[in-house]
């Protein structure tokens, strides 16, 4: 929590230079995937490999959440039979994966992006439309 506090403080203190939006990639259908194309604004800020690694991991996590696996199937059938009352007590597979994604993003922010003056916003906060990367002006804080 202390880290998030510091991030929010940073956000308040620092001025936002730009925002980069990584759009959705629909080449495989309506599954939640993001484009791995490296945006030009980040060229000076972060390593391309690092960036692509982050995006690829996120894509894999989202694919796992939406996978038509046995677990989701069992969950769906159980929910249907209990008139969806089972969702009052347990969270869905998708929600569990979303929690993991949130944790991963925070982790990435702490380790990689914040030191570079960048901030990844969880796509769920943007309706799974975009990954928003805020570029802060390198002004008030240092590493």
């Amino acid at each position: 929590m202390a880290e998030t506090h510091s991030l929010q403080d940073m956000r308040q203190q620092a001025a936002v230079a730009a925002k980069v939006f990584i759009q959705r990639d629909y080449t495989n259908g309506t599954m939640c995937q993001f484009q791995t194309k490296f945006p030009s604004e980040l060229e000076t800020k972060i390593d391309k490999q690092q960036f692509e690694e982050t995006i690829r991991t996120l894509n894999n996590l989202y694919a796992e959440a939406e996978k038509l696996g046995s677990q989701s199937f069992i969950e769906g059938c159980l929910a249907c039979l209990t008139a969806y009352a089972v969702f009052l007590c347990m969270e869905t597979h998708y929600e569990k994966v979303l929690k993991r994604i949130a944790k991963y993003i925070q982790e990435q922010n702490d380790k990689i992006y914040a030191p570079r003056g960048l901030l990844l916003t969880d796509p769920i906060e943007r309706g799974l439309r975009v990954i928003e990367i805020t570029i802060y002006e390198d002004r008030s804080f240092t590493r």
Partner: protein
Amino acid sequence: MKNCEYQQIDPRALSVSPLSVQNHAEKKVQRRRRKWEVFPGKNRFFCDGRLILARQNGVLPLTLGLILVTSGLFFAFDCPFLVTHLTVFIPVIGGVLFVFVVTSLLRTSFTDPGILPRATADEAADIERQIDSSGSSTYRPPPRTKEILINQQVVKLKYCFTCKMFRPPRTSHCSLCDNCVERFDHHCPWVGNCVGKRNYRYFYSFIISLSFLTSFIFGCVITHITLRSQTGFHTYLVASNLTTNEDIKGSWSSKRGAEESGNPYSYNNIITNCCATLCGPMPPSLIDRRGFHLPDEVIPVASALEMELPPFTPKSNANMCTRSTKDVLERMLHSSDFHGLCPSGIQKTTPLVQEVPRAPATAEPSLSSGCSRQLAHQAVVDPCPPFSKSNRRDSLHSINPAFRLASPSPTLSRSMPVLGDGCAIGFMPQH
């Protein structure tokens, strides 16, 4: 952000996202407002944002009302009767279906169908920048489309002016709710909400369970009606091979337990009973409605005639004595059925009744030949049915009163010689 007209956003005018600033400011000053309170779409929220509904309810109250009233009537009226007559599972199944229907309906109505939140200002600006490369921003640009490849197929993505973003594939903007909905199916007025990616399964289970509930209630109502009606009652009778009379009297119902145990006519199998009663062989009518009515033939019994004759004989003897022989002769002459009388037997006169009208000429010579010939003739031509001899006798007597005299042979034989010389035409003396 609820601007209907298109306005280009200048990203340089923005330093920090306005929403986040607003949120932070309000966090310090007063209680935080939840996002649903500032939601731009035409929706209504309940339970502090847990439940969402379209602003236009449509006919959701009507849908709920119809389901509740129909099910209520079913449970109140049909179930008590059917529980006692059939099984206790009927209200159980009905109850389960009812619960399914109502929960599915409520879930469909109150679940977010997959609304896409509108793009933030920054996003919108970024998209603008990417697309509007021409630089002219004084007029409303034409509708934008973006073509992408999905599974090697070209799909056009449309730009939504209200939500300020390119709609993902299969997403559509609902004008009633003023939202972009993912995998948009339709806006259902019965449910009072859009049907989209997130609530399509609830909608489907609602319509399926509603179909089952409707058909179940319908079947129970029909069963109830037939059980209470004549049709049901007689179906029961046919299946147990009973008559209404027996059922009312309770002729075979002394033994309870096995259904057909008391009924000796039952085949102890419902199908066999039905087949026997409904499809068994059709018996013929016994009353012969179209047969011809023969008035005297109908009276049976030779014994009656036999009885009749002996007392008759002495009477005729007496009559004979008193009456003049002339009268007798005359009568004999006129009678068409008088024929050769054979002193030996009364029966010889019988066939003559038939013979005389046909061929009187032949009869005469046969008479002269004698009794034996007459007998033979009689034997040959006798077409009468077995018991009609006595009938003929009777008819003879009735037709020709003179013949009553003829029946007793001894008297005739006495009278014969008396009349012999008197008349030679109609009366053939037998010597």
